[in-house]
């Protein structure tokens, strides 16, 4: 397989996997009825991709995930919030990957999650013009740290397995 096709296929598979995780997570009832709080399991794939693909490849993958995710949920308003969150998160993590090595992936993930929540909050503030929304920000910070650490640790496990697989094949 030529390198280009291979890349495309890998990215498509990753997108599909993250979309599946996203849809499955929708079925899990969220115990915290606060807008913007969720585990974000689909970001396990994002975190993994940030450390294994080029910036524009990750961005394309996340963009497709977001749009198709909105199609599946039928919630296009949410797309605005998640897209601004994802944008900030991606920019932050793509910078952080220069400073944080793969063994400490979970730290990058925590920053990513917190940045994601920050972007969401900024979008929500702009859209609703309600400063009181900021009262939710502390909750988002706590949940971002926890959810980010969790997805980051999952991504670390996935990375370790995938790397081992690759070594075995070669």
């Amino acid at each position, binding site marked *: 397989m030529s390198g280009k096709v291979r890349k495309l296929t890998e990215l498509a598979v990753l997108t599909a996997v993250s979309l599946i995780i996203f849809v499955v997570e929708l079925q899990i009832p969220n115990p915290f*009825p*606060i*807008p913007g709080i969720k585990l974000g399991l689909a970001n396990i794939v994002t975190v993994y991709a940030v450390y294994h693909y080029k910036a524009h490849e990750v961005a394309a993958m996340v963009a497709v995930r977001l749009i198709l995710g909105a199609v599946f*949920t*039928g*919630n296009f*308003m*949410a797309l605005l*919030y998640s897209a601004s969150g994802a944008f900030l998160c991606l920019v932050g993590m793509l910078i952080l990957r220069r*400073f*944080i090595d793969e063994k*400490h992936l979970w*730290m990058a993930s*925590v*920053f990513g999650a*917190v940045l994601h929540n920050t972007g969401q909050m900024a979008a*929500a503030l702009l*859209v*609703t*013009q*309600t400063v*009181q*929304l900021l*009262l*939710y*920000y*502390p*909750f*988002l*910070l*706590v949940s*971002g*740290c926890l959810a980010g650490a969790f997805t980051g640790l999952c991504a670390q496990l996935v990375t370790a397995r995938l790397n081992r697989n690759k070594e075995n094949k070669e």
Partner: protein
Amino acid sequence: MKKKGFLAVIIIIFLLGIAGSAVVLLMPSKSHVRITSGGKEVYTADLSAAEDTFFDVPYQGHVNTVEIKDHKIRVKDADCPDQTCVRMGWLNSSAAPIVCLPHKLVIEFTDGEDVDAVTR
């Protein structure tokens, strides 16, 4: 060494979040509420004097049904996909407002100045 710096930042963010959450949760609830829809104020009330009622707040063809009962207020029903505002329950015990992001609806406590419509 660098990693410790990042870890410290994470811990600081986390602690700030917890401290902030505690502050928000400890804020007392007030009796005046305001409902804004799409950035415009559509309803205000003094909950301590309000009668039990419910009414619809329309937004671009969508509806949130707001209920006032026993001097508390909540979103009883919404036709948005995520239902977060409904599951947030009654507006009480903290200063955090009820929001329905898809419909840009906010129910929040106010200081109660110039409340012109005690009942609708």
